């Protein structure tokens, strides 16, 4: 029994011996949804994939963020979440960072866009890091925002959807789990098509004919 079902907050998904996972709450022996989304039952785990809401940070997720401000020790980054991401100065300047000697705004300024990894999600604001391959400041490209709940659909099964978009338009797409996407391409027609298909995925709620629709956009004007 793994049929997905449309649920609203408070809807009873199933009763009995199941374990509540993401967006599911246990009330006696009833498993109830706490979000608008699709419920899924696998073995005895019940999850609800939400259709709305902001990004919930998870450790090791790749996210694209926009620098909002900085103080003496860290940058504050908008990661489309409930909390701002924090990128510490030590991450860029190394251990011998000194607030009196180094100036944060020389490295990253307000409105700069970075690709970062979520290092830690604790009781405080999520900690970002840009130590790692390909991480750091993004110099060029087009930034597209969609709802973070649509990211799994944008990627498709085994990243099939995003690969088909990349292949047919020659665009390099960097997807942040938080719903921010960077597209890079020299060919503006391909770029426009890729942006149109990503935005369409972000707007569409029913997924039955999604692949067809994306294919239509990619095939159009060829």
């Amino acid at each position, binding site marked *: 029994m793994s049929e*997905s*079902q*449309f649920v*609203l*907050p*408070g*809807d*009873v998904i199933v009763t009995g011996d199941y374990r509540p996972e993401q*967006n599911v*709450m246990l*009330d006696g022996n009833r498993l*109830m949804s*706490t*979000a*608008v989304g*699709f419920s899924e039952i696998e073995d005895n785990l019940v999850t609800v994939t*939400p*259709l*709305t*809401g*902001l990004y919930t940070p998870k450790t090791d997720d790749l996210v694209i963020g926009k620098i909002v401000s900085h103080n003496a020790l860290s940058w504050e980054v908008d990661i489309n979440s*409930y*909390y701002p991401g924090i990128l510490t100065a030590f991450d860029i300047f190394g251990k011998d960072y000194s607030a009196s000697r180094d100036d944060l705004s020389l490295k990253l300024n307000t409105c700069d866009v970075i690709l970062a990894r979520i290092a830690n999600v604790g*009781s405080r604001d999520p900690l970002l890091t840009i130590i790692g391959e390909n991480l750091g400041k993004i110099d060029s490209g087009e930034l597209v925002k969609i709802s973070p*709940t649509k990211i799994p659909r944008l990627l498709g099964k085994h990243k099939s959807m995003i690969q088909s978009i990349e292949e047919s338009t020659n665009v390099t797409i960097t997807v942040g789990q938080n719903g921010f996407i960077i597209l890079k391409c020299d060919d503006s027609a391909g770029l426009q098509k890729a942006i149109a298909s990503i935005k369409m995925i972000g707007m569409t*709620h*029913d997924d*039955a004919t999604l692949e067809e629709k994306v294919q239509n956009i990619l095939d159009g004007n060829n």
Partner: protein
Amino acid sequence: MGGREANVVLLDENGIRSDGRKVNETRKVTIKAGVLKNASGSAYIEFGGNKILAGVFGPRDVHPKHMSNPDTGILRVRYHMEPFSVGERKKPAPSRREIEISKVIKEALEPAVMLEKFPRTAVDVFLEVLQADGGTRCAALDAASVALADAGIPMRDLVCACASGKAADALILDVNNEEDQAGQADMPIGYMPNLGKITLLQLDGVLTADEYKKCIELGLEGCKQVYEIQKNALREKYFSSGDKD
């Protein structure tokens, strides 16, 4: 509590009320989810003659900072009536009544919203009454609940609300403006239908113990009817095709 407007016939001999409804009938309710682009979540409700817009922001940073709670999120509700929402121009500054209703709606929503998941943040709910026709607190609560679900804020259940009351010695569902003015009792009820919990209960007027029980039962029936409309509003936004249900 005698009637103030003696010339209004609240209930005729056939059991039909001043606006043509039966005693256990609600007014026409329509809800639309996601009507505002800039808010995280929104809803518009028409509850008979009431027209109310609800917008939700957050969870987001709390300003002023001293209001924030390190253990849980906080809920802030502003209920406001537009100057043109009533017959004679209402001054736009928050009145005693609006402050009370804001508090009452906040407390009716708090059991449903899982604020403990978002410490140090605030969820802001803005309710604008564009047109008032009696029972705005229930209608506003209905809209607020749909807007919160639309914003993707985790909730234990939707909160639905409907008033019941007494006019012309009969128990009635969904008290309208005339019945509120000239009737004997008005009882707004907020209810979480899946958890079976009442989150809002007020009573203005006098009821016997027996009437009180019946009045609650009647009100809960109304709440359940509104709940179906709330569900449909959210379904329509997220599942207009309806093929997965």
